[in-house]
């Protein structure tokens, strides 16, 4: 009896704290009790939603994401975006196990009004009536301005098999976007809202996150041999015969994810006060040090360069091979990576995924941007910091691959991914996730954004960049900033650190890199050291002054000509090297189509280099950034010898057939 009283006090105190103290505004909190039926592949749930109306007007409806309905039929917007017969989708759908759904069996408000009949599916993005991923519930009693109301839902979900990001396969379950989640009620003036409104998009194949902060308490009733990992901290574990109930709690987050499998090995480590938990399969246990070390690296780096990680835990899920579809995902305090038992150390996929997915705890989780409307704000920022972290701990030129003589750095890999894409100009950086109709989501939202952030770092300097990121985090953590909120922070910091060196604001930069599609390419066109004579000819009308060949001197007029080949205009540094070993750094605003630097004197120019420190990551071609007077004989010979040896080896290998 005493135990029940203690539990009652504990659970009521959990919700009494709601809306009061804490890191975040706590708009939407959840208390969910669920039963996992592993035979039917279903979840049965009782869900309590505690919602605070952030507006100063009453709200007469609620809107929910019902993500699992994306897998309800082939006509959903998700399926149409992705293509039913695309890769992993088709197999599970053909055998029938891929289809899934969530049915809300009943919903009551605090006063006991039955809202079950007030539910309708809406399609705010595309009017696709077959899409049932957004549910609108008309309230009997509107939620008053600033008031907190509680809603009680009972629902059942059929879990999909091997769908993107979520579902089950064999005995492995990865449960994300799994419960009816209320949308964000945006206030006029915040982000792009002109009036108070629901922002609740349909589930698209790219982009997931945009939710309000709150506290979660989730109790998961699973078969006794299953091990559960979830967002937050394990508060209670009760064994009841053939079943075990695992209760996890987490505060000030925008979402909740969980996973279960009877085969998990649970391993633990620590960084300062943060417990790092790894859920992996037994034959991957030897990879644990790689997961833990990379997690410690990224925790330390983000703490130093952006801000503190305030949660007591972070859980890494390392899916089994049949759970590949869930690898490389990010949810509050729970991320998934990927490893194979045979991964060589120099192939750093596990480290990159841990790093990348953890950085999302900052960009999309704590700074709760809208991944669907502005994917660049979470994927791009995350990719930018991924390179910084990986390059710091594993080396600038081998942080992605260091294997079999091949070395590739993270930032350089990112740059080439963008430049080698089919069409780097396919869309502007601020494109909404579902508007990347013909490709470019990955290369623009991830790669290009990371490149222009690195370019910004090059232009304003690393100290100013750190200042920008720290200020952005401090100002916008536990809120929902939009792109303009970020550029305003950049303007403030740049003005504070550089005055008007870069103009009144940085619009000239963002108009090109974020809102535009132009590409950047500066080139050294020529170097000349022409001899210059004294003036000659009919200089004063009648008498001819002869050309005095003796007075021709080399290097009297040395000249470097630069070209701007791309449409993008950026301030450029140019290093000019002279024969006597001296060098001069020149600055060009980069605006004209061509530019020359002329030097009068005895010294010959021997080479010129645009952007010698490679600050402009956006430059599409580094090869034409420099020119020397003399051919680079040693380098040319190196590539010749390499090519010759490769040709000889290829010829010799082919004789194996003879």
């Amino acid at each position, binding site marked *: 009896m005493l135990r029940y009283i203690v539990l009652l006090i504990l659970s009521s105190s959990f919700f009494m704290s709601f809306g009061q103290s804490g890191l975040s505004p706590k708009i939407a909190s959840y208390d969910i009790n669920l039963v996992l039926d592993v035979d039917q592949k279903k979840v049965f749930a009782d869900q309590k939603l505690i919602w605070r109306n952030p507006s100063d007007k009453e709200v007469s409806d609620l809107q929910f994401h019902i993500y699992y309905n994306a897998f309800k039929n082939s006509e959903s917007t998700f399926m149409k975006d992705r293509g039913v017969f695309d890769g992993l989708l088709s197999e599970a759908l053909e055998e029938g196990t891929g289809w899934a759904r969530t049915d809300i069996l009943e919903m009551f408000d605090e006063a006991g009004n039955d809202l079950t009949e007030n539910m309708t599916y809406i399609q705010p993005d595309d009017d696709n009536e077959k899409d049932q991923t957004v549910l609108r519930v008309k309230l009997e009693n509107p939620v008053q301005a600033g008031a907190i109301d509680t809603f009680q839902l009972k629902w059942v979900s059929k879990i999909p098999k091997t769908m993107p990001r979520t579902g089950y396969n064999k005995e492995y379950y990865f449960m994300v976007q799994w419960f009816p989640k209320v949308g964000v009620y945006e206030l006029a003036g915040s982000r792009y809202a002109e009036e108070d409104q629901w922002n609740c998009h349909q589930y698209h194949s790219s982009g997931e996150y945009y939710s309000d902060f709150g506290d979660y308490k989730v109790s998961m009733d699973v078969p006794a041999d299953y091990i559960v990992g979830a967002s937050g901290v394990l508060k209670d574990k009760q064994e009841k015969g053939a079943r075990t109930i695992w209760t996890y709690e987490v505060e000030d987050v925008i979402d909740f994810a969980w996973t279960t499998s009877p085969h998990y090995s649970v391993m633990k480590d620590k960084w300062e006060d943060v417990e790092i938990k790894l859920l992996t399969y037994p034959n991957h246990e030897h990879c644990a040090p790689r997961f833990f070390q990379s997690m410690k690296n990224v925790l330390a780096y983000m703490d130093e360069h952006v801000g503190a990680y305030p949660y007591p835990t972070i859980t890494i899920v390392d899916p089994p091979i049949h759970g590949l579809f869930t690898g490389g995902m990010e949810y509050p305090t729970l991320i998934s990576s990927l490893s194979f038992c045979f991964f060589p150390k120099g192939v750093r996929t596990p480290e990159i995924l841990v790093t990348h997915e953890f950085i999302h705890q900052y960009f999309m989780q704590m700074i709760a941007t809208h991944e669907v409307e502005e994917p660049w704000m979470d994927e791009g920022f995350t990719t930018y910091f991924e390179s910084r972290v990986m390059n710091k701990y594993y080396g600038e030129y081998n942080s992605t691959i260091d294997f079999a003589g*091949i*070395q*590739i750095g993270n930032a350089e890999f990112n740059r080439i991914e963008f430049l080698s894409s089919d069409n780097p100009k396919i869309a502007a950086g601020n494109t909404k996730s579902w508007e990347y109709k013909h490709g470019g989501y990955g290369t623009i939202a991830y790669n290009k954004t990371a490149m222009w952030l690195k370019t910004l770092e090059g232009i304003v300097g690393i100290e100013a960049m750190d200042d920008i990121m720290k200020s952005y985090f401090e100002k916008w953590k536990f809120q929902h900033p939009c792109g303009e909120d970020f550029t305003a922070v950049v303007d403030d910091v740049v003005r504070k650190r550089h005055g008007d060196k870069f103009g009144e604001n940085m619009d000239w930069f963002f108009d090109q890199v974020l809102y535009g599609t132009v590409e950047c390419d500066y080139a050294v066109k020529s170097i000349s050291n022409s001899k210059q004579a004294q003036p000659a000819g009919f200089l004063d009308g009648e008498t001819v002054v002869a050309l005095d060949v003796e007075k021709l001197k080399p290097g009297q007029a040395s000249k470097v000509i630069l070209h701007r080949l791309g449409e993008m205009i950026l301030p450029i540094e140019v290093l000019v090297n002279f024969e006597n070993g001296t060098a001069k750094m020149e600055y060009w605003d980069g605006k004209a189509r061509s530019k020359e630097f002329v030097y009068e004197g005895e010294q010959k120019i021997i080479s010129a280099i645009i952007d010698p420190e490679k600050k402009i990551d956006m430059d599409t071609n580094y090869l034409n950034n420099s020119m020397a007077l003399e051919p680079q004989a*040693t380098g*040319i010979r190196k590539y010749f010898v390499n090519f*010759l040896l490769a*040709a000889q080896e290829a010829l010799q290998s082919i004789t194996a057939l003879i």
Partner: protein
Amino acid sequence: MRSVITVLFSGLKALFSNWEMWLLVYGVNVFFALFVALPFNSFFKSSLGNSLAVNESLNRFDYTFISDFLNEYGLGFSQVLNQSYFVLALFLLLSVFLMGGIIDSLLGKRAEFSFKAFWTACHHHFWRLLRLTIYYFLFHIGLLLIFVQIFSIGGLSPFELETDADVISRVQWVGGFYLFFVALIMMFQDYAKVKVVQTDERWITNSALAGIGFTFRHFFACMFLFIIQVLFFVFMTFVYITIRKQFFMSSEGTILLALFLGQIYLFGRMGVKLLRLSIAGEHIRVYKEETSKHI
């Protein structure tokens, strides 16, 4: 066992006493490789020979340099590569052509290597060895297809696998058997080639079958000799890679050293390839002598 060792040493002896031929094979390789590498060199020089990026990339595997080169000059580069397919086809034909002379010389009919006899044998055996090469090429393709099928039993989808260790064990088992059969076909081919040159019959079927028959009858000896040669190759490759890993081609000296080491390695590889034929020829000869002694 004693006769197998004898075969190995007399094979080595035959190879070294025909060193002119070994040099010739090496020379042909260099000549054809230059046909590919020289156009690349002039293309490379003219497109970015004056860019400082070329020398900057000396001290590491420069992914940015390589990718920018392919992005900017990929079209010109692929034209150079396309030309090399033609060179490759010519090289293959010439290699088949040389095979007759090589085997003829290795069979030790003459006291000294003779280029005249070598070219005559090349010419004489060319069409039959070409047919044999085509047949064995088809065998290799067939074998590969069969093993791809075997590898796919139970599905290749990762979603069907219980653990990734399944993939490893499948690669180990199927790959192991595949390599065994590849070795077997190569052995058949070596002995068949020798038989084709030795018997000098118009139709190659009997010789090819005789080669297979010989391999089966002397399976362990053949396998032992084959493994010895594979070990030669593995050892050489290991030593080469180990030394090459010690330095970057970052100066004129190291570039020259890499070129020199590469040539030694390739020369050695060609020697091992020739040794296989030499040993096959000696093996058949020694066996013949032994059987005639018994008679």
